[in-house]
Each structure stands twice: as C-alpha cells, then as structure tokens.
C-alpha cells in the first residue's frame, strides 16, 4: 500500500473535520494574547451583561469582562491543562509499565498493588482530596488529575509489553546481548505506540472534561486563572437571560471533546483494520 493511500484511509471526512477543529483550537489557544481584543481579566462595571455586538463579539459577563477574550484564554488553560495531565501520565506511566511488564517479579507486583489502590478511588475522588490538601490552582489540578491517570497508562503499557516480550524479535535481541533498556525503549515501546496513542488521544478528551468538572465544582483553577469549566460555573445562572455566556464554554468543551473522540476512533480503526473487514462481512450477512 502506498503512502498516499494509507493517508486517505485514515482521513475519513469525520476525522478530517475533527483534525481541522483541533488544529484551530490549538492555534487559537497558542495565539490567544494576539487574537483577544481585551484583557480577559479586565472588568468594566459600566458595560456588564451586554449582548453580542461588534465591540464584544460574545457580549460581556457580570463584571463586564469580554466573553470572547475569556473564551480564548480559557481555551488556552483548558488545552494546556489537559495536555499536561496526559503528558504527566505518560512520563510516569509508560516507563513504569515497561519495567513492570518486562522484568515482572516483585517490582511488577508492587506496581500492580499500588495502581490497585489508586484506581479503587472512583473517578476524581483522589484528585478532590489532593486539591483540598495542597490547594487549588491549575498546576495542582493538573498534578492531581495526572496522578489519577498514571495507573491507567501504566497498566495499558504493562499489558502491551507483556504481549510483546515473548515474541521472537525480543528473544533474538536478548540472545545477541542487547541491553534491556534498549530493548524496552527502542524495540518494545515503538510496537506499543499505536495502541497507546489511540488511548492517550482519548485520555486528552477525558482530561478536558475532568479539568472542567474540577473547576465547575470549585476545586479547579483559581482566580485570575480561568478555564471553560470555571466560565460555565460563573455563568450557570445566566442561561435564561444571557444564554451565550453559558452556551459558549459548554459548546466549546463538547465540540473539542467530540473531535478528540472521533480522532481516537480514527486512530483505532487505522491500527486495527480487522474492524473494517468485519463491517463489510456483517453487512453481507445482514
């Protein structure tokens, strides 16, 4: 199969649109200070709760802050936070999973027991407690949610490593005296990457929602930081009178996460072509 063909297999219309949406979100977040017409924290008590206009594209909130500018900076915080959470879970989870899966033995058992304890805290309970003790703020929220995500990445990496390590190429490398670290990171890890990348893409979506939830219930970012979850919380009671201020951050979260989910599904389908074959044969039966 040529390079071009495999690319067109990946970019179905839905995946292409999702990529465009995510690219736009990334660009807007990266250049928020250049695009935003106002300072997102500047209040203007003479112009509170205005509707959309050319001056304020999305209107203003209770304290006269420009909602459009806040959306841009809020997106920046949300995306940066979500990426931070997943990067943290990768930085700790992938090496831990590789070591545990490759060497096995007591190290493996200790890691599995430790992850057992962390995953027995349902959803964000541990993150809530962590933030309650060490304080609110973007950094602490990312750290807290990241800790909750580490065991999942570690376990997935471990199970992928387990299925790789008994394959012939690993045996061959061992026999040739290739150092373990090199086998793990240069040979096994690349073979785990397709599945890992599909899961980690999905995790970014979950991280967006989790970070927004934390801010929404008052355990996330603290002023003057703002993310889409905190904006939703602030505008919760305005949904009747000023729907745009409440709808904008909510729709932004939903659209971003949907795009991430479609992308993850696309990666999954791309690396596991059996699903496509199945589709055709089921159609034939049905």
């Amino acid at each position, binding site marked *: 199969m040529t390079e071009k063909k495999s690319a067109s297999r990946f970019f179905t219309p839905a995946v292409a649109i999702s990529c465009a949406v995510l690219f736009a979100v990334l660009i807007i977040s990266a250049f928020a200070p250049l695009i935003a017409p106002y300072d997102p924290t500047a209040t203007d008590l003479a112009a509170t709760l205005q509707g959309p206009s050319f001056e304020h594209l999305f209107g203003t909130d209770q304290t006269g802050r420009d909602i459009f500018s806040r959306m841009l900076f809020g997106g920046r915080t949300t995306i940066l936070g979500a990426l931070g959470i997943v990067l943290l879970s990768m930085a700790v989870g992938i090496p831990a999973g590789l070591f545990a899966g490759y060497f096995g033995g007591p190290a493996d058992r200790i890691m599995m027991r430790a992850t057992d304890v962390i995953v027995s805290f349902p959803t964000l309970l541990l993150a809530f407690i962590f933030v309650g003790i060490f304080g609110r703020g973007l950094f602490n929220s990312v750290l807290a949610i990241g800790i909750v995500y580490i065991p999942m990445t570690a376990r997935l990496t471990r199970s992928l490593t387990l299925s790789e390590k008994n394959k012939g190429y690993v045996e061959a490398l061992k026999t040739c005296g290739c150092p373990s670290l090199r086998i793990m990171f240069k040979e096994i890890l690349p073979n785990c990457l397709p599945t890992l990348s599909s899961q980690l893409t999905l995790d970014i979506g979950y991280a967006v*929602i989790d970070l927004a939830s934390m801010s929404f*219930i008052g355990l996330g970012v603290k002023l003057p930081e703002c993310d889409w979850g905190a904006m939703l919380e602030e505008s919760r009671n305005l949904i009747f009178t000023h729907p745009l201020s409440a709808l904008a951050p909510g729709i932004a979260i939903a659209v971003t996460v949907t795009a991430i989910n479609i992308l993850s599904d696309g990666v999954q389908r791309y690396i596991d072509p059996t699903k496509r074959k199945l589709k055709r044969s089921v159609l034939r039966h049905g």
Partner: protein
Amino acid sequence: MKRRRQTLRYIASRLFGFALTLFAVSLLIFFLERLSNVDPIAVILGGKRANEATISALREKFGLDLPVWRQYLNWIGGLLHGDFGTDFRYQQPVWSLIAPRLGVTLPLIVAASAITIAISVPIGVLCAVKQGSAVDTALSAFCLAAVSCPGFFVSMLAIAAISRLAPSVRFTGTFNDFSGMVERLALPALCIALGMIALGARVIRSKMITELDSDYVLFARASGVSERKVIFGKALRSCVIPYSSVMSIQIGSLLVGAVAVEEVFSLQGLGSLLIDSIQGSNYPVTQAITMITVFFFLLLTTLVDIIIAAIDPRVGKGEASYD
C-alpha cells in the same frame, strides 16, 4: 469439581484483595489528610477565640493529643464498629451528616442506573444489527456527542429547556413523599444517565458486531436458528460480560461522580457534602465519605468480577480478562 475449586479460589483471592485494598486506602486517606497545614483545632473553633485550657480540652475530646498512629487506630477501630467519629465543624456524629445525603444520592443512582440499562442495551443492539444504516449512523453520532458532553452542561441545558417547555415541573427544593422524589430526581437522573447510556450502547454495539461475525453465529444461522434467537439468545449473552464490567465501574463511581449534576440541580447529595468538607478541612467527614465511596465502588466491581468468573471459568484461571 476442579473447575468449581478454581472458581472458589478466585473468589477467595478477590475478597482478600478487596479487604487489603480497603485497608491500604484507609492508610492513604488518613495520612494524606495529616499532610495538610490546616490545624484541626482552628476548624473546630471555627474562627472563635479560645484560651489554652479550652484548646487542650478540645484536643483531648477529639483525640488530637494522641500520637498519629493511635489516632489512626482509634479511627479504624470506630469504623469497624460502624462509628465514623465526630465532625469538626458542627461537632455532630459524622453519620448523622451523611445519612440524609444518602437519602438523596442513592435513589438518584438507582434511577440513573435503571434508565441506563433499560435504554443503552436496545440502542446498542439496534446499532449493531443495522450496522452502517442511517439509523446506526445517527444513533452512533448521538452517542459520540453524548459521551463528549460533560454531565453538568447537559444538566444546564435540560433545566433551560424544561423550564421553557414545561414550567410546572418542580425541580428545586426538597421532597417528602415518593411522587415528590420522582418529580425532583427524574431530570437529574436522566442527565446522569445520558452519558452512561451512550457509553453502554457503544460497548454493546462494538462487542455485538464482533460476535455477529463469529463462527458460532454463522453456524447457528446455517442450522436455521431464527435471527431473533441468534441476536438475543446467543450474541447478546456474550455482551453481558464487557457491558457489566464497564457499567459496574460507571455506577460504582456515581456516589461521588454525580456531584457536578447534583450541584446544578442544587440537590443536597453526598457529593456536595464531600466538597464542603474538603473546602472546610473537615477531615472526619472527608475520610468517612471516602471510605464509604471506595467501599461501594470496590464492592460493586468485585461482585461483578466474581459473577463474571462464575459465568466464564477462563477468568478465574487467569486465561482471559475483560479489562
């Protein structure tokens, strides 16, 4: 006989793991709370001034004068007797704060779970059977969007929509009777269920598609078994295991996981008590809710794992897993 012994051994090991994890969680939560730099006495006094004598009397009353390991043993000893201790803020038994909250959150969880199971299974089956059709595409797209929407945003939209369309529905305030409870909890339960319905339907759909393409289904069809029996009698059975595995985690998380939706509907549930206790450094309440939540979660997931092992002996022998 051998199979039965293996299953029993698996059950025993799972129950042992359950107890061990619960113990580790109690250690973690207790000593994590001690890392906070908020002085419990300040929380107990709640901003009031007090002299040294009062403070040391309070220290003694709450057992804060003891070494930390004694405090832990006292706490865990109380837990084993069903005593959650006294809270710092209201100085009441912790259980008396938690019990009324469970009266809101438990019915909410039961309702949301019932709605989820009743709706997600038919949707998943329909999508799998009509795979590739317009119905499947529409429902799958809906499920994808529903999975991606945070529950609290769905709740805000639902409140806005319902109060426009049916202004007579009352979903604020408290309830005293069953019909009041139904009126008050129906909408939040639906909002919580929406995401779980979508997730459950996706699980059923993908498993069902694999099953419908397998050899045993082909054989059943070839030997003239009706399509209805193939779908509901054979293929759907195999979906039960991954579905209940996913759902036990989802439902087990709801005790605290419903907090954002409870906040939007201003329901006085367990989640809002937890957030209050975390923000107010009211450790006895935080610790109690954590232990109850983790217990409920582990109980549900362990039970489902054991049931799965009883259905599929390969799980008990470690030959198959459904993680």
